[in-house]
C-alpha cells in the first residue's frame, strides 16, 4: 500500500514537473484582452502589437473590441471570467464604474492588468497597471528643445490636444516644467488643434500669420505627431522650411513623423509605445511562475527619437503595425 502511495506521488510529481517545464513563460495560458476600440492609429497599433506579443509567447489571446463602450468591456470581462481564462488585460475606456466587475474577477482569482489608462478603484482589485507617464513625455520634449536651442532666444508656439483631455493637460505641464527658468525660451502662443492634422494645420497657419509670417516663431511643440504633420504643411505653405526655420517637436512616434524626419522636416518626437502588453505579459509571467507581486504602476519608457535614430528604418518598422 505504502509502495503504491509512493509510486502515485512520484508519478504525480513527474507529471507536475513535466507540465512546469512545458508551461515555461506564458506558453499555453489563455488571456483575455478587452480593448477600447480602434478610435486612433495608435490604438490600432496597440492591438496589433498585443497580438504579436501574445503569439511570440505562445499565449492564447481572446480579443474583445468594446467599440468605445464600457458596458461592452464589462460584458467581455464577465465572459472571460465565465470561460475561466488565466488572466485578463483591460484598456479601460473610462476611469469609473469598475469596482463590481473587478471584484468578480478577484473572486474568481483571475489577475487583471490595466493597460494604458488607470481606473478609480481599490488597488487590490487589479494586479498592476501599465501606462506611460504623460507629464514625462512633455518634459522629454521640452528638455530636447532646451538642449537644441542653447542660449539663443526662442519663441515657441504650442499646439495643444483636445481641451481638458488628460494627455493635453499633462503634456503641457511637463513641457512647461522643462522650459521653466530658461529666460531665452518663451511660449508665445498656445491653441488647441484637437489632436488632428487638419486642425493642427489650420492653427499653425493662424500662428504664422500672427507672428510676422512665421519669422517670430523659432519652434513648434505639438501634443501629438498628427498635429505636427499638419503644422509642417502649414510651414511649407508659408514658404518656410520646417525643421530648419521652425523646429518641430512632438509626441507619439507614429510612422508619418518618421517620414517627415527622414525628409528633414521634423526634429524630435517622444515615443508613446504601443507595446503596453509586453511589460504586462512580463509581469504576469513573473507572477505565475515565480509568484512575484509586480509593482502597482509600471511606467513605460518615454524614448526620444531624433533624425540621428534612423528615421527611415523606424518608419519601415512601424508602418505595418496598423498606425
Amino acid at each position, binding site marked *: 500500500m505504502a509502495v503504491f502511495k509512493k509510486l502515485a506521488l512520484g508519478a504525480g510529481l513527474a507529471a507536475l514537473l513535466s507540465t512546469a517545464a512545458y508551461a515555461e513563460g506564458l506558453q499555453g495560458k489563455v488571456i483575455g484582452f478587452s480593448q477600447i476600440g480602434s478610435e486612433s492609429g495608435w490604438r490600432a497599433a496597440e492591438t496589433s502589437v498585443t497580438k504579436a506579443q501574445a503569439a511570440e509567447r505562445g499565449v492564447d489571446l481572446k480579443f474583445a473590441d468594446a467599440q468605445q463602450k464600457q458596458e461592452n468591456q464589462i460584458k467581455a470581462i464577465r465572459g472571460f471570467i465565465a470561460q475561466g481564462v488565466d488572466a485578463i488585460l483591460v484598456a479601460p475606456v473610462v476611469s469609473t464604474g469598475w469596482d463590481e466587475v473587478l471584484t468578480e474577477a478577484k473572486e474568481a482569482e483571475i489577475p487583471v492588468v490595466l493597460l494604458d489608462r488607470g481606473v478609480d478603484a481599490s488597488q487590490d482589485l487589479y494586479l498592476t497597471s501599465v501606462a506611460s507617464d504623460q507629464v514625462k513625455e512633455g518634459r522629454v520634449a521640452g528638455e530636447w528643445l532646451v538642449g537644441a536651442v542653447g542660449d539663443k532666444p526662442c519663441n515657441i508656439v504650442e499646439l495643444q490636444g483636445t*481641451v481638458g483631455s488628460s494627455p493635453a493637460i499633462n503634456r503641457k505641464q511637463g513641457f512647461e516644467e522643462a522650459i521653466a527658468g530658461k529666460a531665452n525660451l518663451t511660449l508665445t502662443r498656445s491653441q488647441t488643434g484637437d489632436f488632428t*492634422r487638419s486642425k493642427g494645420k489650420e492653427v499653425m497657419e493662424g500662428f504664422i500669420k500672427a507672428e510676422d509670417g512665421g519669422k517670430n516663431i523659432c519652434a513648434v511643440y505639438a501634443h501629438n505627431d498628427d498635429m505636427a504633420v499638419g503644422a509642417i504643411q502649414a510651414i511649407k505653405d508659408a514658404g518656410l522650411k520646417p525643421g530648419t526655420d521652425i523646429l518641430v517637436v512632438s509626441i507619439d512616434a507614429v510612422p508619418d513623423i518618421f517620414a517627415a524626419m527622414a525628409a528633414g522636416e521634423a526634429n524630435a518626437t517622444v515615443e508613446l509605445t504601443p507595446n503596453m502588453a509586453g511589460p504586462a505579459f512580463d509581469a504576469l509571467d513573473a507572477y505565475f511562475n515565480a509568484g512575484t507581486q509586480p509593482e502597482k504602476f509600471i511606467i513605460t519608457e518615454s524614448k526620444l527619437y531624433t533624425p540621428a535614430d534612423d528615421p527611415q528604418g523606424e518608419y519601415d518598422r512601424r508602418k505595418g503595425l496598423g*498606425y
Partner: protein
Amino acid sequence: MTSPAPPRPGLPLRPVGQPPGPRPQPIWMRLARPQFIALAVVLLINWALFPGFFTITWQDGRLFGSLIDVLNRGAPVAILAIGMTAVIATKGVDLSVGAVMAIAGATAAVMVTSGLPAGLAVLAALGVGLACGLWNGLLVTALGIQPIIATLVLMVAGRGLAQLITEGSIVTFADPVLVFIGTGAVLGLPTPVAIALTLMALATLAVRRSALGLLIEAVGVNRSAARFAGIRAGVLLVLVYAFAGLCAAMAGLIVAGDIRGADANNAGLWLELDAILAVVIGGTSLMGGRFSIPMSVLGAIIIQAMNTGILISGFSPEFNLVVKSGVILIILVVQSPQAARLLRRPDRKTATASEGKA
C-alpha cells in the same frame, strides 16, 4: 424669414424663366442685412486684435494672408452649406454630410495609394457621395422616414464605413491631383475657394434661372400641396439629397487633399452642424421654403472669420467655444423677427408698404 427685403411672391407662381419680382430697395439697403453687418463686425474685431489681418501679399504664385485663410478654411463648410441649403429649403436636414466627407476622402485616398489614376479616384469619390445622397433621399421619400432620423443612420454608419475603407489608419498620399484640389491655386485663389465660388455660382444659376428653386420652395412650404399642384415631390427630394451628398464628397476631397491624407476618424467631424448653422445664419428657415445659396455661403464665411479670429487673437483655447457661441447668439438675435421689427420701426412707411404687399 427675417430679412428686411419684401418676400418674393411664393405660390401663385411667377412665370418660369423670368427674373424674380422687382426689388424696390437700393443696393446699400440690401447690404444693410444683418449678415453683412455681422461679417463686417467680425472682420473689424479680427483687425483690431491683429493689425495685419487685411494684409494680402502675393507669394509663390498665389494670394497669401489671413483673409485668404478665412476663405480657404471656410470653403469646405461653404460647399456643405450649398447642398444643405437645398435640403433645408425642402424642410429637411442632412446630418450625414460630415460622414460622407470622410467616406469620399477615404475612397479617393485608398484608390490613389493602390495605384489607380487620380481622375478615376476623384470620380469614384464623387460617385460615392452621390450614392450616399441617393440613399438618404430614398429613405426620406420611399420609406417616408423623417429626414433627421434618415440621415442620422448614415451619420453614424458612414464614419464606420470610412474607417473600414482606411482600415482605421490615416491613409497618406502624395498624388499631385488630390493635393492640388486641397492646396493648389487657380488664378491666385486657393483651389477650394475657386471650387466653392464656382459651385455657388452654378447652383444659384440653376435654382434661380430655372423653375428648380421655385419647385424646391414649393415642396418645402407644403409637400402635399406641391404634389397636388403637379410637382413630382419625391423625385425632387431625392435629387436634393443627392446634390447634398455630391457637395459633401467635394468637401471631403478638399480636406483630404489639404492634409495629404484621409483621416476617417476626424475628417468632417461635426461639420454638418457648422453647415446647418451657416444656412441658418444665412437666413434660410429650418421650416423650409424660401432660401438663398449665396447667403448660406456668407454664413459659412462668418463662422470661419470667427474661428480664424479666435486662433490669431491669442486667447486661451478654453475660451474658443464660449466666444463662438456668444457671437452666434448675437447674430441670431439681431436676425430674429422681433429684432427686425424693432430695427424697422423708425422707417414705418417702408414697413407698412412691404407688409401690405405680402
